[in-house]
């Protein structure tokens, strides 16, 4: 008799869920027709939640500020969880479509970004991602290793962050220009799109510039707690600079474990390293002298950044990282573009997309945000802004020139 019980239980559970969903749904649909519906997808739960929540919080602050201005352009924001999974990100995107999204802030992380950008491209939905930096999100970019274009350009997709190859080649260029190291070790995460993408372009640029790479070691998600093998390989090869193209959680462990064996080279990171000073239980004095390329500096003295950091701290109780600034800038970039065009909130997503793509690639559109001044976009979808070198001194970022 179990089968009837089971069936009934499942049906009851489903009915309960459906009931709840319709209740929640009806609340959301009671929106004003004067506001643009802005959607975003990111990992709000799971291992990558820190990035998704930061981008979401940044975007929320921007939307609040813009709505408080009471101008013609008003936003309604909805962020959906994808748990850093491509399959779930498409579900999240579809949920937003059902909600009536007109403009899409894209995915926060790269692999889901590849999936949602393809969906948005099929629907002609305007897509500006804060931080999905893989070239496959944009499409039409040559693979740095084989020189082939593996995915066609998705014409409605734009990035606010640096593309992975730009970061890798910029890092190599920076190290060569500033003469930061004569023997270079690289540790990267070879099951991660972001880390591998930066590594590939770094290595091809480094070979071009004649940088001396003495040690290349890898790790994966499953092995990112013990770095003794990688560190001792770098140490035994006398590397004086270690390049760490990875997120700060793993980098914090590498710094701690290198210190434990008395290995003190220069550590060089990319924008994923931003946030290392906020890692719980991490001795920030270990990060002293670490160099990283990042577009955003929470300790910057300019008025807009100070204002944003204060608001973020008041609302969420922590110092915003680069992802928060990216999320904030995304909303403002769309805001500026909408103001510069003759769009109105009653237009369909596809009409808005055509208008915004024309504005973004028109050549005259330039945007000043927290993560850079005079950002412009062209047909490739990649942003043009220059990365800033930062060095950690006395527990804060100081700009390098």
């Amino acid at each position: 008799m179990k089968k009837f019980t089971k069936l009934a239980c499942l049906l009851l559970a489903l009915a309960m869920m459906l009931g709840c969903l319709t209740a929640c749904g009806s609340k959301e649909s009671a929106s004003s027709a004067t506001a643009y519906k802005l959607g975003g997808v990111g990992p709000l739960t799971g291992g990558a939640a820190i990035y998704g929540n930061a981008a979401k919080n940044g975007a929320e602050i921007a939307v609040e500020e813009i709505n408080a201005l009471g101008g013609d352009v008003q936003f309604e924001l909805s962020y959906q969880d994808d748990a850093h999974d491509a399959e779930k990100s498409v579900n999240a995107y579809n949920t937003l479509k059902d909600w009536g999204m007109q403009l899409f802030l894209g995915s926060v992380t790269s692999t889901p970004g590849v999936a949602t950008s393809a969906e948005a491209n099929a629907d002609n939905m305007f897509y500006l991602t804060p931080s999905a930096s893989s070239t496959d999100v944009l499409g039409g970019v040559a693979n740095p290793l084989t020189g082939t274009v593996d995915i066609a350009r998705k014409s409605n997709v734009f990035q606010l962050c640096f593309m992975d190859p730009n970061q890798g080649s910029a890092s190599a260029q920076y190290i060569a220009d500033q003469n930061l190291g004569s023997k270079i070790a690289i540790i990267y995460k070879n099951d991660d799109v972001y880390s591998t993408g930066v590594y590939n372009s770094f290595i091809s640029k480094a070979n071009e510039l004649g940088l001396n790479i003495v040690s290349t070691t890898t790790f994966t998600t499953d092995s990112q707690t013990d770095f003794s093998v990688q560190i001792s390989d770098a140490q035994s090869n006398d590397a004086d600079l270690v390049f760490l193209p990875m997120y700060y959680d793993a980098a914090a462990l590498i710094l701690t474990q290198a210190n434990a064996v008395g290995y003190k080279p220069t550590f060089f990171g990319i924008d994923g390293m931003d946030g290392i000073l906020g890692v719980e239980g991490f001795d920030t004095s270990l990060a002293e002298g670490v160099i990283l390329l990042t577009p955003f500096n929470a300790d910057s003295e300019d008025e807009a950044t100070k204002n944003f950091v204060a608001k973020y701290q008041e609302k969420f109780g922590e110092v915003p990282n680069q992802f928060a600034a990216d999320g904030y800038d995304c909303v403002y970039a769309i805001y500026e573009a909408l103001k510069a065009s003759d769009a109105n909130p009653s237009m369909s997503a596809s009409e808005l997309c055509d208008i915004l793509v024309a504005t973004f690639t028109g050549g005259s559109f330039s945007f000043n945000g927290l993560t850079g001044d005079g950002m412009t976009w062209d047909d490739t979808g990649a942003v043009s802004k220059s990365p800033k070198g930062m060095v950690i001194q006395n527990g804060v970022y100081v700009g390098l020139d």
Partner: protein
Amino acid sequence: MKKLRLNKTSRTNFLTYGMVVVLFVVLQIMSGGGMLSSTMKGQLVPICAYVVMALSLNLTVGVLGELSLGHAGFMSVGAFAGAVTAAALQNAIPSGGLRLAVAMIIGALFAAVAGVLIGIPVLRLRGDYLAIVTLAFGEIIKSIINNLYIGMDAGGLHASLINNTIVLEEGGRMILSGPMGIPGITKISTFTAGFILIMLSLVIIFNLVNSRAGRAIMALRDNRIAAESVGINVTQYKMMAFVTSAALAGAAGTLFAMGQNTIIASKFDFNQSILILVFVVLGGQGRMWGSIIAAAALTILPELLRGFADYRMLVYAIVLILVMLATNNPTLSGFFSRLFGRFRKPQKGDAAR
């Protein structure tokens, strides 16, 4: 559940076929009439893939009686083999449906080969040992694909391991790039293709179970020593069930991959294997219709729970626990058996459960 009488078994089987057909027709009509949300439409293909995964794992767990914790490994093999095949045949076979069918066959073949390879050492083990080795198998597949690079140009397919050393001619493109997986999949999986695969899986599984071989397999499950003593070839029959299960998982993997924009190897991890095992356990071991309902319901559930926002996965876990408790609650089942009492005839299997 022991299938004691043939007529009872066939009745259940036909009811299962019927249920799938009715669900398919209803969903197709709703889809055609614009009654399905984008979320629901987007989930139809993954649901079909997960249903086939659950059915195939049920063959290993429920019918063969061996616990496998690496079933996502076979799905992964099928997904990547199928997706690479489909990408390579993009120009050769313009028809999406035909290309999908070819990709599925290739995906199933590769998964079957993987099934044979892993089956040789694994099926000599029993119980916990077998579970742990299959778990390791899933991890090995993940590692291999994370380090595999495949590109294609006019000269055909090129592959390299660990480092991407592929040199492609003008006009070539990378299909699989290690940890980045396959980023640009042309979606060709349809709900109809998923439905056909489910029906095909059911036909294969029901016919296998009700054949002489199937009875031998179940005899092995129930008492290996007794089965061996009457001359049943243990390795042969275990292998038969295991490889069939792997091949179906491979086909499901292809169906899944061709319904996604991108797939990466780490998608098919230990958690994925456990999720599929949950479908099987919740639906009832050896009970195919239970697997179908459980797989479909548990795939849709997290999306339905989006209304709970931050508490979504917590609520999902609670619902899972409640359903597990409810299905094992004697008071509740007593209530339902009284309610539905007139439909049922006493079964010996009930007391054992």
